[in-house]
């Protein structure tokens, strides 16, 4: 996937934070990475992609960021169950919004969520893995875009 295809993901993640929390996120310049393990935070949501493109979309965020987002949504409970659910929902929303660019054949799975930082986190053997850094409320998360044409 070429870097110009990332704009839809940058717009989607920025819109997510603005719409959901009322506070803008700062989305940094995407960069290429070979090993994504160092970009994995406390909670991670993973969506598999098939159809017109194949690969995955990963959103990984620290626990404190997910707690604050839940609170901004007007919800009082920030149990682990809610934080895991939220990280999957962010990933689902960003991936679903990408259909605006890629169309109805951009198929997304329901999210898988994981807690913690595995020693080796491999997304796939697709060459171009882009990291999109996000800063919100002085906390840092990462959107990992790992796609190629089918």
């Amino acid at each position: 996937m070429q870097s110009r295809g990332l704009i839809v993901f940058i717009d989607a993640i920025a819109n997510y934070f603005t719409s959901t929390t009322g506070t803008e996120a700062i989305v940094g310049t995407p960069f290429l990475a070979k090993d994504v393990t160092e970009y994995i935070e406390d909670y991670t949501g993973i969506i598999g992609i098939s159809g017109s493109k194949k690969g995955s979309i990963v959103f990984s965020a620290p626990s404190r960021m997910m707690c604050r987002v839940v609170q901004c949504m007007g919800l009082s409970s920030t149990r682990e169950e809610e934080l895991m659910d939220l990280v999957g929902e962010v990933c689902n929303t960003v991936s679903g919004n990408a259909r605006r660019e890629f169309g109805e054949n951009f198929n997304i799975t329901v999210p898988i969520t994981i807690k913690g930082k595995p020693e080796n986190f491999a997304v796939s053997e697709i060459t171009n893995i882009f990291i999109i850094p996000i800063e919100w409320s002085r906390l840092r998360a990462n959107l990992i875009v790992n796609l190629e044409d089918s």
Partner: protein
Amino acid sequence: MKIMIVDDSMVIRNKITQMLKNQDFEIVATAQNGLEALEQYKQFKPDVMTLDITMPLMDGIETIQAIMDVDDSVRILVISALVDKATLINAMKLGAYGFLCKPFSDTDLADALEELVEDLN
């Protein structure tokens, strides 16, 4: 007015529930997939539903079909991140009454629900 909330995300179900507390809706059921929604629908007969599309076991499109086979009077507001025209048109053709894109604000949801029920009150 009776409403049912269907979404596989607990946080989204809780957010919608929280938002509806100050409105004229009685939340009669929530469900996390289409199969649960169908069962709950038969039991509680809500007037209005909010419905996600991407869900495990039975997705939102299949759920609209299944519920319309039982009763086509329910008003379904699809709330989904899938923003392509084909999904929207398909949902509306099958019987959905409105469509709200994720992510959404409280105001977006309130406006969408108001439009959904404006001629029912």
